[in-house]
């Protein structure tokens, strides 16, 4: 299958990052099931020029009005990355569940993002996730809870993953399907009109990954200190730690939705 135009990748406004997208992106061959879960299927290849044009916005950062339709890349400034590592140096022995200074650190992150006009949602939660090196997949999932109803109610703001930051000291990969939930739904409906309509995001994800398993996922290399904000509309996202030597650390930033705020 060929990539279809979906949301695009861009550098967030007011973050000065010179991104060579061609060296950051890979295109996979589809997805497959492994031990009861979906994983991106190799081989990974460089995107063609047409694919690159469809996937990423080159040059200037996205305009404000385009933001919600983009996955926005950003980077923590050096002083915040230093603060993170200093905090780890001061932390207690491995296994302790409370990380002294974590609340102050995430407040600084939120303050930076607010200054850069990329504010995290009110009442956002920050969660550290560590993953073993060398994994093809952490977990394919929608940015919303699998049980969240599909189609979404326009009156509700469901809990969702807002974005994440690579706080490890090695690059890791974010694996994505470049379509928002509605596009996936439409593609399924067009190709498989007899399929029962999914009732939740989890069902939509399973349906898409099963029936359109050849749709090529994309893999974005995320350098240490870099983060991303997901576009609106619900997207399928995974992470991959292939090629890393040490555990990967992602700071997940989530919107608790209407109920949680």
């Amino acid at each position, binding site marked *: 299958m060929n990539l279809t135009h979906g949301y695009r990748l861009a550098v967030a406004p*007011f973050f*000065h990052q010179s991104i060579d997208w061609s060296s950051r992106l890979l295109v996979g061959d589809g997805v497959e099931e492994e031990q009861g879960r979906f994983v991106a299927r190799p081989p990974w290849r460089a995107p063609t020029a047409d694919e690159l044009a469809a996937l990423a916005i080159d040059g200037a950062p996205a305009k404000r009005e385009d933001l919600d339709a983009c996955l926005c890349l950003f980077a923590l*400034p*050096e*002083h915040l990355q230093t603060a993170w590592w200093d905090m780890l140096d001061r932390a207690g022995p491995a296994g302790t569940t409370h990380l002294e200074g974590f609340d102050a650190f995430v407040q600084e992150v939120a303050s930076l993002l607010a*200054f*850069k006009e990329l504010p995290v949602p009110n009442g956002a939660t920050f969660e550290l996730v560590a993953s073993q090196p060398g994994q093809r997949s952490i977990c394919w999932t929608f940015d919303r809870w699998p049980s969240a109803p599909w189609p979404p109610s326009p009156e509700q703001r469901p809990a969702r993953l807002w974005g994440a930051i690579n706080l490890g000291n090695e690059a890791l990969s974010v694996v994505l399907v470049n379509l928002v939930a509605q596009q996936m739904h439409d593609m399924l409906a067009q190709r498989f009109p007899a399929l029962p309509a999914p009732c939740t995001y989890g069902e939509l994800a399973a349906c898409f990954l099963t029936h359109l398993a050849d749709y090529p996922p994309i893999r974005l290399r995320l350098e240490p200190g870099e983060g991303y904000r997901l576009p609106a509309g619900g997207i399928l996202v995974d992470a991959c730690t292939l090629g890393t030597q040490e555990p990967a650390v992602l700071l997940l930033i989530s919107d608790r939705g209407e109920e949680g705020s």
Partner: protein
Amino acid sequence: MTPSVAAAAGPLELLVLQPTPFCNINCSYCYLPDRQSTKKMSSATLRQSLDWVFASGLVREPFSLLWHAGEPLVMPVDFYEEAVALLGRANKSGVRVDHSFQTNATLIDARWCDFFLRNDVHVGVSVDGPAFLHDRCRRTRQGAGTLDRVLRGIRLLSEHQVPLFALTVLTAEALAYPDELFDFYRTNGINSVGFNVEEIEGPNISSSLLGAGMRERFRRFFRRFVDLACSADPPMVVREFQTSTSALLGPRYVAGSRTQENKPWAIVNIDCDGNFSTYSPELLGFSSPRHGSFALGNVFRDCLDDVIASERFRALEEEIARGVEMCRQECRYFAFCGGSAPANKFFENGTFASTETMSCRLQKKVCLDVVLGWLEEHPATPARESEPTHA
């Protein structure tokens, strides 16, 4: 020259010597109209300038000698070695003189570092931050960026343990990057910084900071930078934070009191031909239909008493004094500011008898507001005991 009328003027606080108008780079916001001219101050002019200053009656207390405009390091080190020797001879009463250079740092080498150290020179380096900000405006005449050369100069200063102060011109673009600027300074060992706004002066007839919403953007930038600087270990010294704190906690300006820039003869500016002016250094080299050249005389020809008695100076002083009084009457920040810089008033408003400028709005008012807010949130700062006034 017998100090008489001049004895009531000044005293001299800042002597700005402009040994050449030439600058080896070509910044897009530069106010110097003759920066391509390679004229240089001769030994004779240097000697006469120093003799004139010390004979003027203005030197009555310690002052700063700033070498500035164009790039002072275009002149050889030997010129400044001679200047130090001539200054020592002219300064018969042994008044303390602090030497300062404002440089783009591109020409610094080991010999310059040795000179700076031996003479306890305060070195101000003009640098606008990371390449995406600095190289946008601070370019060579061929259009190439200059940051690499600036950083080489900064590294040399650091290796020779010459303290430096970084002066950054803020454009509208830069206001989005306080964290990046903070990281840039820290990475390059800079712990003392000041911010100038991109001003409308001379040939720079516009500014990116004139756009809508700039006051709020500047406020957000400055507040964030102050927070970063104050929480650093050690804290970064920010000139605008210090001057605003001093203004808030120190003496008040009242009727009749003046700032260095609007007080006659507190600043003396002398160019490479020996032409001199007072008030804002940026005025030297410019003229107005009403006042003619702002160069009020020449060190070879004119004694200060005659200049002070001249109709041209009186008209200039009258207009500037009127502008200060307008500031006092109209601006609630006057007690902390003492009136806007005459050069900003002239270039932005067309007359010295005017009030608010962009520099007032951003560098004075916003900075004062931000620092006041910061001080209120950090009450451990020593409280003001009284409200003394400027003499």
